[in-house]
């Protein structure tokens, strides 16, 4: 069985920077994306090429999802570039292991390019960026109201009777729980993507390493399964972060019905 490690392997050190194979892998993914983009716009026209059709389908899908979430085309257009980049990056990165020959380039013992999303550092970074952005956007729209969703003092201050004070206390404690739910968003987003991609890799490696007979054709259905789950997880990551951002913006906009 191949050696499976959670941490990315160090390829070389550049001053204080450790360049790991996952980092090189994500550079490779970016390179693929740039190439695809150049190829797809090279002969753009009324009669689209195949690549252009594929990209247009993706763009249409993303746009309709964003419009659904934000309920407003202008806002959706503002968030479109970020979300589309995320989607394309994760889509390609999840399928990194099925790109032929790339993972066979080795330096010494370790391969130079590794699947970027199978390492927790990248997925945590992306999830943190999304959740922090959701918080900052809501804070910029209305700081007081957004903090008010975490520290709900309103019912407590308005309370006049003992029963109302108890009710206000419960609301206050429930509001504090929202802080934990913000933290849980980071963990759930990052672990979901990382777990699925890494598990796909480990599963294929384990099946291939079971015995001599399972080395060539037996892992194929599992490879297909991991490709499928990688596709779905890319969409899930992006759709969920869109939901988080839209939700936090909606929570501070006029007349929050939810206390």
């Amino acid at each position: 069985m191949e050696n499976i490690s959670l941490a990315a392997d160090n390829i070389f050190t550049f001053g204080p920077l450790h360049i790991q194979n996952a980092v090189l892998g994500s550079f490779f993914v970016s390179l693929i994306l740039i190439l695809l983009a150049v190829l797809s716009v090279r002969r753009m026209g009324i009669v689209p090429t195949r690549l252009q059709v594929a990209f247009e389908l993706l763009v249409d899908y993303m746009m309709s999802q964003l419009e659904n979430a934000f309920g407003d085309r202008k806002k959706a257009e503002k968030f479109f570039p970020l979300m589309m980049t995320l989607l394309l990056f994760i889509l390609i990165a999840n399928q990194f292991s099925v790109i032929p020959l790339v993972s066979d380039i080795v330096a010494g013992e370790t391969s130079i390019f590794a699947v970027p999303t199978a390492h927790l550092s990248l997925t945590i970074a992306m999830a943190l960026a999304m959740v922090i952005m959701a918080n900052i956007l809501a804070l910029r729209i209305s700081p007081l109201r957004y903090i008010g969703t975490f520290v709900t003092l309103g019912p407590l201050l308005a309370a006049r009777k003992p029963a109302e004070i108890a009710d206000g206390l419960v609301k206050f404690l429930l509001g504090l729980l929202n802080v934990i739910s913000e933290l849980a968003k980071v963990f759930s987003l990052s672990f979901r993507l990382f777990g699925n991609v890494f598990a796909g890799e480990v599963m294929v490696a384990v099946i291939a390493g079971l015995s001599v007979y399972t080395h060539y054709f037996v892992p194929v259905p599992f490879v297909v399964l991991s490709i499928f789950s990688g596709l779905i997880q890319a969409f899930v990551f992006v759709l969920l972060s869109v939901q988080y951002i839209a939700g936090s913006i909606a929570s501070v906009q006029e007349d929050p019905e939810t206390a």
Partner: protein
Amino acid sequence: MDIEAARLLAAGLCMGLGAIGPGVGEGIIAARAMEAIGRNPQVTGKIIPNMIVSMAITESTGIYSLVITLIILFAL
């Protein structure tokens, strides 16, 4: 008990117990989606993507236990 044995046992238990919840949950989602499709076959195209997304979210508790298992197996 040997510490290595305890580690392997913990990994197996973690994954096995953690898979119960998502299994039941995904079954419920699939059952309801099938019911909805059976009642109204025209909206199949709308139900299937939503079903897959909600399944992926339901799966996340299973994925958490998987991550813990992988950490126990390969990182400790």
